[in-house]
Structure formats: structure tokens, C-alpha cells
């Protein structure tokens, strides 16, 4: 039954993507607002588009709404106003089943990795498949040999295959984040959302993680939308940067034209008050 639904949906998916690649972007925010608890305005009237294959960074001060943007896409939070289109789905109108489809197609990577610490590295990577499996085989943790092979392939690619049987709480932060990446690749997503993926890592692990994300974006054609606190990292890796300040987009363009003054504007501070190594 599950299988049948999947084939129908694959057809639908094929149609939408062939019909839409020409003009429609993969992701589109149209006048989206989000108000938490009827009082906290996190996003006000935000509009932007992301095309397939892009590598986009979102920068902005703490509390400006970066995480909220990502969470609206896979409906971990529901937008209050406006419409979000992702790969032919209208997120606001989607029912439970459609949300499930959307989540299957979007990987998410977190600052604190959010792995199941007691389980092995491979098991955590295989968790990326849960959305594709029947409830019962997911519950008992039954994976096909093909899925397991795929998991090991991904681990190999991320340089973690020697850690496969370790428990996740025995790994370093950088390794954990690579497991997080492996888990989301396992989903075979169209879009990966990263919420401050390197905020808890040292500079060299950060580089490894960013290089992997950049590589995934190029070789697998997975679109990446990344929240970053490190402006210089955003400048180095992104094709496009979105700067937001208290829920408003104040910059949307290529890294080359993001001037120092604009950065100060995004972070609402004066010259000399920021720790950035932008020259």
C-alpha cells in the first residue's frame, strides 16, 4: 500500500519537476510572516526564491529569524501569513500526508547534531531512511541490504567508515556533524537546511563540514540553505547571501556585492564593533 502511494507520487513528482524546472524555483517565500505566541514577530513580510542547485547562506544577528525561516519550510513551525512553495507543494495548505512528503525531501542539519547518542553511527545514518519506510520496519529498525550499503557508501565519502560501529556519543563534534550530514544525504533530499552547522565546531572541523556541504551541493545537485553566524564563511562558500535583521530581508545578492557597510547594517552596529575578519 505504501509502495503504491509512492509510485503515484513519483509520477506526480516527475510531472511537477519537468513542468516547473523551466520557470518555477525550487523554493519560494511570498510575503511570509511569522508571529510566535501572538506577540513575538519573528518574520515580517519576507519574500525570496531559491533555485535548484543553489548554495545560499542566511546571515543575521541572533534572534533575527534565521531558524524560523528554515523551520517554516518543513513545517516544524507554521507560518502565520504568506505562502511558501517548495517543489510543487504549498506548505501552508499541505495536509499531514503532504507534510510527510515535504519532510522526506528536505534534510535538516542542526547545531547540536541531534543524533541518537546510544545508537551506532550507521544506525543514525540509516535513520535518514525512516521517512521512506513502512512504519513497522522503521519501528523495529529493519533496513534492506541495499540501504545499508548506501549508508556505508555515504560514510566512506565523509571519511567516517572506520567509525561505523561506534556509538555516537564516542565521537567528536566534527565527526558527529558529519554523521548528521550523512543522515540527511541518506534521505536523498532535494534541499538541505542547515541551522548553524558549524557554530559548535573549531575552525578546522568547520572547514571540513563546509567543504562537505559544498561538495554535496555540487556533485549531488542538492540545494543548500544554510544559517551561518560566521560572515567570512558565508562569503567564502555561498553563491548567494541573504541578510536579515529583525525579521526583514535587508540584503539578497551575491557575496561579491556584500560590502562592509551592508554587513554593519545587517548586524545593526557601527564600524569597529564587529568581530569579523572581512577585509
Amino acid at each position, binding site marked *: 500500500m505504501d509502495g503504491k502511494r509512492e509510485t503515484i507520487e513519483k509520477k506526480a513528482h516527475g510531472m511537477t519537476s519537468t513542468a516547473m524546472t523551466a520557470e518555477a524555483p525550487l523554493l519560494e517565500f511570498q510575503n511570509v510572516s511569522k508571529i510566535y505566541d501572538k506577540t513575538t514577530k519573528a518574520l515580517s513580510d519576507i519574500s525570496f526564491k531559491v533555485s535548484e542547485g543553489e548554495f545560499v547562506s542566511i546571515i543575521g544577528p541572533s534572534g533575527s529569524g534565521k531558524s524560523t525561516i528554515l523551520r517554516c519550510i*518543513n513545517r*516544524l513551525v507554521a507560518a502565520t501569513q504568506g505562502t511558501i512553495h517548495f517543489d510543487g507543494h504549498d506548505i501552508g495548505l499541505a495536509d499531514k500526508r503532504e507534510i*510527510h*512528503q515535504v*519532510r*522526506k525531501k*528536505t*534534510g*535538516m542539519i*542542526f547545531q*547540536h547534531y*541531534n*543524533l*541518537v*547518542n*546510544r*545508537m551506532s553511527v550507521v544506525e543514525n545514518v540509516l*535513520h*535518514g531512511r*525512516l*521517512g*521512506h*519506510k513502512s*512504519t513497522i520496519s*522503521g*519501528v*523495529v*529498525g529493519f533496513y534492506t541490504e541495499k540501504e545499508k550499503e548506501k549508508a556505508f557508501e555515504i560514510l566512506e565519502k565523509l571519511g567516517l567508515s572506520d567509525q561505523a560501529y561506534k556509538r555516537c556519543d564516542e565521537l567528536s563534534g566534527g565527526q558527529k556533524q558529519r554523521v*548528521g550530514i550523512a*543522515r*540527511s544525504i541518506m*534521505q536523498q533530499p532535494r534541499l538541505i537546511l542547515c541551522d548553524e552547522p558549524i557554530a559548535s565546531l573549531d575552525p578546522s572541523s568547520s572547514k571540513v563540514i563546509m567543504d562537505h556541504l559544498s561538495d554535496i551541493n555540487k556533485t549531488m545537485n542538492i540545494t543548500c540553505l544554510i544559517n551561518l553566524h560566521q560572515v567570512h564563511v558565508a562569503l567564502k562558500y555561498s553563491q548567494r547571501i541573504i541578510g536579515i535583521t529583525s525579521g526583514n530581508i535587508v540584503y539578497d545578492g551575491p557575496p561579491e556585492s556584500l560590502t562592509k557597510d551592508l554587513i554593519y547594517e545587517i548586524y545593526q552596529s557601527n564600524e569597529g564593533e564587529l568581530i569579523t575578519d572581512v577585509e
Partner: protein
Amino acid sequence: MSKEQSTKVSTPTAVATAPTPEIDTSYFTTIATSAAASTTFRSAELVVEAAALPLSSDSSLAEDLQKHREKSLRGRIKIGAKGMSGPVIKITALVLIALTVYGFITFDYKNIDFFTAVAKTLHNVRVMFTQPHLVYNSFPGLMWALLVTFALGALATFFGAIVGFFGALLCAKNLANPIVGNIVRAIVAFIRAVPTVLWVLIFSVAAGLGSVAAVVGLTFHSAGYLVKAYSESIEEIDYGTIEALKASGAKYWQIIFQAVVPASIGYLTAWTFLRFEINFANAIAIGAAAGAGGIGYDLFMASAFYFDLSELGFITYTVIIAVVILEIVATRIKAKVR
């Protein structure tokens, strides 16, 4: 505000005039004198502090310094968070002490001489533990009875754990709907408030006195206990893990068994074993009280029927050894499920 405080600080009479309920006042007077002493010391200290600041010419500064400090009746600076918990705890303690005193005063002591009573009790204990023997029961019979008690405890724990687990999913704050959660918590609190033995007796109305009523009653209370213990263990786990699987499209039961259970299994087993120990002890008591059989019933017969202290001693030793073995096994298993 600051005026009010200054009166509190400067006049120890405020302490004496404060409404003191009908309790021994000598305690308070001693405090009042010591408070007077400490107050003078403290105000002197404050003056020094204010003088040390560059803006000391402004006399309102000293008041500013005082503004956020609240003082107790004794003139000391309060440090606890606001709320009723302090007074509530004090009142509870006073009520308990009063009840205890009342109890001791109104006991019917039947003219027992305290020292002979203690001496005789010690003698009985010595007979129990130094001369254990088995006359009315056979050793295999006793082992069988022990097994029956063990089985009662194990069955109750098993059923209680299953009900407890699903109940916990319904009321753990990081998983459940808040309304459903509150309803489940209320029901469970009620179940726990009624003692186990009472549940057994309640169920014995339908099932008759015996092992069925015992298991059902024990299960009932165990489930209530484990719902609370399990749900608190589940609440301990990092919500991020749940969210990560949710974001990847995993379904509810997949999240439960792939993230929630693995992350909390250590706590879950620890609580289950603790409850098993409790159930084993309860099964002994209920064996006697509800005629559910097992070693508790033999214990009851030896003491209330045969008045045989040595037999009682032997059975007690058996129970103690069984409990120790149980504890060792439990510790081993818990260490494995680290």
C-alpha cells in the same frame, strides 16, 4: 518602600510586635535580641559601603542601594525566590510535629514497662536470627513459595511496565498533547495516592481474595508509579533528537522506537527494576494480607499461627538472601544497559 524597610531594620520592636501565632515565644525573643545585634552591625557596614562610592554626597544613593533588597522580620537580607513554598513547608512541618506529639500522648501503652519491653524484643530478635530452623515448612516448599512471590512481583511489574510505557507516552511533556497529558497525570496521581494493599482489596471484591486480585492490584499501582517515572525519564531526553527525526519525515512510532526508547532505555530499566523490588516486597505483604500465597503467607502463618520465632527467622533469612541476589542481578543488567 525604603521607609518601611528602615523601620524594619532599625527597630527590633517590630519583631516583637509581629503577629506570632500561639507558639512558645521564648524562641522568638532570643532571635529578636540577636537580630538587634546583627542589625546595628549591618547598618554600620552599609554606611561604609555608601561612603566608599564616589557619589556618596547624594543621600538618595544609600536608598537606591537598598531599593531591591528585601529584608526579613529579623532585618536580614532575603535571598530566597518569592513564593509561598517557605511558609507552606513550615506549616506542614508544624502540623506533622503536632500530630506526632498528639499521637504519643494519646497512645494506649497498656502499662508496658519500657525497659522490659525493649529487653524482651531484643531477646526475640536474637532467637529469630541465631536459631533459625524449619519445622512447619519443608525447604522445597519454602522455595516454591518464594517462587510464587517472585512470580507475583514479576507479573505485576511486567504488566505495569507495559501500561506504564504507553501511559508515559501520553503524558510526557515533550511528546504528548497537553490536555491529554494533564488528564493522564491526574488519573495516575489518583491511582498512586491509594495504597497498593487497598487496590488489592478493592479488586478482591470482584476476583475474590487470592493471587488474581493480588496481581491486578499490584499492577494497578505499579502502572501508576511507572507512568510517572517513565514520563519523567522521557522528558529528560533532548528534544532535538525527536525533532531531527520528525524533520526527516519519520512517523510517530518510528520516532518512539528509534529515538525515544533508545535515548531513555537506561532510565527505563532502572525504574523497572526499582519497581520490581518494591513489588517483590509488596507481594510478600499481600501474600499474608490477601491470602495470595507465596512466602508472605508462610511468614504470616509462622508468626501469627505457630508463634515460632525460629521458623520466622529462617523465612526472613530466605527473603533477605533472595532480595540480595535480586539486587546483584539488577545491578549487572543495569550496567549492561548503560
